[in-house]
């Protein structure tokens, strides 16, 4: 299955959490609902990242939809606004590549994931970025994510490659580990920051 090892029930790397969002967005957009699509080769841990995010945020009072492939999670920001992420996972196997446009149509956010131990998955990520530039909505917020950052010794894609590629394409870049939860929250916080906010009149 897609994930590197089982996920331990610890929550390190999450301290600080949403405090980073103090400066996020304007206070006029109270409740954003955002469609986020996950793209990337099968086995890079797309769904693990999301599960980590959703479970890490777990709050018994919040309504969390935990499905296998569709998840939604609302995060409350410091300024009393909320962002509800509706996360659409896509099948990463090559045979389903042609179906992706059905999923990313109308998405406000695309998270393109690769595995830092697999150059092939990095190539595939670049393919998705090009796809999105050609066919995605023009104001889509894109993030490039190098997952499995805990596997240092097996690293084959230098972080620098990811940084450069993301910079060239106007994307946000981050390396994460769904296994240790490193940078998982930061990923979604950073996305929330970059979301265009509706005008006060709405």
């Amino acid at each position, binding site marked *: *299955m*897609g*994930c590197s090892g*089982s*996920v331990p029930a610890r929550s390190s790397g999450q301290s600080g959490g949403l405090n980073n969002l103090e400066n996020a967005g304007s206070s006029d957009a109270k409740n954003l*609902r955002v469609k986020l699509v*996950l793209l990337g080769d*099968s*086995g890079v841990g*797309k*769904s*693990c990242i*999301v*599960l980590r995010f959703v479970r890490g945020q777990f709050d018994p009072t919040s309504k969390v*939809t*935990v*499905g*296998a*492939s*569709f998840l*939604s999670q609302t995060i409350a920001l410091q300024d009393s606004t909320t962002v509800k992420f*509706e996360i*659409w*996972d*896509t*099948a*990463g*196997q090559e*045979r*389903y590549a*042609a*179906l992706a446009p*059905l*999923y990313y149509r109308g998405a406000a956010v695309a998270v393109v994931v690769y595995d830092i131990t697999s150059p092939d998955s990095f190539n595939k990520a670049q393919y998705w970025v090009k796809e999105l530039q050609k066919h995605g909505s023009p104001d889509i917020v894109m993030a490039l994510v190098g997952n499995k950052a805990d596997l240092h010794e097996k690293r084959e894609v230098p972080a620098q490659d990811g940084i450069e590629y993301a910079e060239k394409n106007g994307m946000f870049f981050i390396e994460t580990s769904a296994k240790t939860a490193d940078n998982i929250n930061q990923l979604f916080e950073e996305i929330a920051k970059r979301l265009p906010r509706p005008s006060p009149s709405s």
Partner: protein
Amino acid sequence: MDTSSSSSASAAAPSAVTFYDFLDRMRNPASLDLVRSIKSFIVSFSFNNANPENDGKRVQEFFTTMESAIKDHPLWANATIEAIESAMEGLEKYVMTKLFSRTFASTSEDVKIDQEISEKICLLQTFLRPEHLDIPTFLQNEASWLLAEKELQKINALKAPREKVLCIMNCCRIINNLLLNASISENVELGGADDFLPVLIYIIIKANPPQLHSNIKFIQLYRRQAMLVSEAAYYFTNLVSAKTFILDLNAKSLSMEETEFEKSMQAARLANKVTLIEESTTSNGIKTLGEQGHPERHDVTRIEASAMSNDRKSLEEQRRVGPSQRIYGNNTITSGGYGYPFMEAEASRLTTGDVEKLLSVYKDVVRKYTNLCRAVRHVSVPMTVAPIPHFEGNNSSFKQPATKTSASTDSKRGE
């Protein structure tokens, strides 16, 4: 964790309550203005020919107009958002049930695509295994799959767009539960869409839900757009994507040798033809075709009868003049008792004298086959569209013909 059966039951119950509540309010004299708008909208549809895109737009606009009319209406004064929402669900169900025969599978193009998908699935059913889609063994759970298939097959028995969407949701939830449970019991992480989509595709192929394309299009056009969002939109998109995958499926789409794929498809095509011919040669076959109770049945029987009498005549001739019985006289090859005298023949043993007989047998088979195809087409179209009541402003037409559609599921399915 919800069991699948209880979740589907609970999903159906509120809808019934909602709908009766809606009908009650519509009977209230205070709602006369709304009833008038609804009726005149429905009537206006009978003036024009079906034009799906335009019809869809008109219906969506009507829903929007009615939503503000209901919000401003004295009957809904101080109503909660939920009450207005349930009135809108009731309205959608009412209008779309009335307009169903006019809007569902309304173009010959749609009927053609439905048939194309269904036929392709029939072929795939004969050889496709979960391994061909790389579905891991721990997800191969027949009981869950069967439940999911059943949910999906209900889609064609329901008329309200919302209820059709619920069938999809229920089917997908069952798959989700399977994935969740399997990941717990196998102690592996959830595979997400990488696991979900292949299982959904496999279940669609096993279920071969009738008129898949038309059901999808109907939801796309007539489900209130504000409601086809979020989780519902996600699972709906998966159904669309699975349908697209199946339609485009070729040797490269599967974990299977290309030559093996082509061979299997070819064998499946042949098997389907043989099944058709065998059915036609038994008198039982004629009876079942003729007794469907459709207006076309006389035509069908006539075509069948003429095909049969031709067969009988020419085949009897062949038997009389027939090629040497010791080689060819094998009747067991067909269930109907008519011989196809060259079935056991070898090319080296044929004589020029056999050419004429071969040709006449060939013509016979082709004639029979084409007649049969025509007959089956005549039968299958009204069979799938049949459960539509006439919409004469009579609420009895809302009683869902839930049982009838089981007859429309393709008899060729090997399940």
